[in-house]
């Protein structure tokens, strides 16, 4: 299954229902489009990605998360293209024997996607202007990296 999708994300296949009978916890995170950013009304967003690396990194993040929390299942999927307020931008599903690991895994996987995966977000505002959201520098051969922004 691809980790990036130009069409609306489908939750059902990500849930892996009927699998993992040893898991009593299923955590789901859905990131949806907010109608504001820094007090500016937002009408819609456009997500773009550098797919070859983004797909690879999302596979790696899933594998790292499963290994770190010793859980059997973690999936993340991110939407691309033009999205309206309320649309789902990202789903993450984690399954584990107990809920604590599922919640923690879900949170970590989403954080890693936001920090590491080459995906960009352009916001379109009610006043007709637009701007790319300031993000995380993923350059690895830089002497100094200042992480100055907050994550919503």
């Amino acid at each position, binding site marked *: 299954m691809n980790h990036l999708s130009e069409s609306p994300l489908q939750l059902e296949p990500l849930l892996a229902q009927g699998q993992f009978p040893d898991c009593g916890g299923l955590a789901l995170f859905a990131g949806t489009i907010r109608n504001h950013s820094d007090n500016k009304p937002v009408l819609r967003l456009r997500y*773009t990605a550098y797919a070859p*690396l983004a797909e690879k990194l999302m596979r790696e993040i899933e594998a790292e998360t499963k290994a770190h929390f010793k859980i059997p299942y973690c999936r993340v999927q991110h939407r691309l293209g033009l999205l309206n307020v309320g649309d789902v931008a990202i789903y993450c599903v984690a399954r584990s024997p107990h809920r604590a690991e599922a919640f923690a895994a879900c949170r970590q996987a989403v954080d890693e996607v936001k920090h590491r*995966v*080459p995906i*960009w*977000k352009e916001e379109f505002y009610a006043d007709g202007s637009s701007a*790319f959201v300031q993000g995380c*520098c993923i*350059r690895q051969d830089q002497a100094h990296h200042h992480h100055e922004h907050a994550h919503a």
Partner: protein
Amino acid sequence: MQITIEFHGVLERLAGAASMSLIVADGAVVADALELLTQKAPNLVDTVERSACAIGDSLVSRSDSLSHGARLALLPPVAGG
């Protein structure tokens, strides 16, 4: 040798194009191509400095060699989710 620079995210907007062809010297490394690029497009300097570079599905460093026909993707700071 000829290479192609791919612009992503805000760089595509700043460059006004999705890609640009460059002729670099044989044996050139990534840093050489970026130097040539920013000479041609000085408005990209700050964003290129904060951009990672990738070829195919791998990140590359400024000191990595380029080959003829390479497609070098410039990846400005990311903001998924």
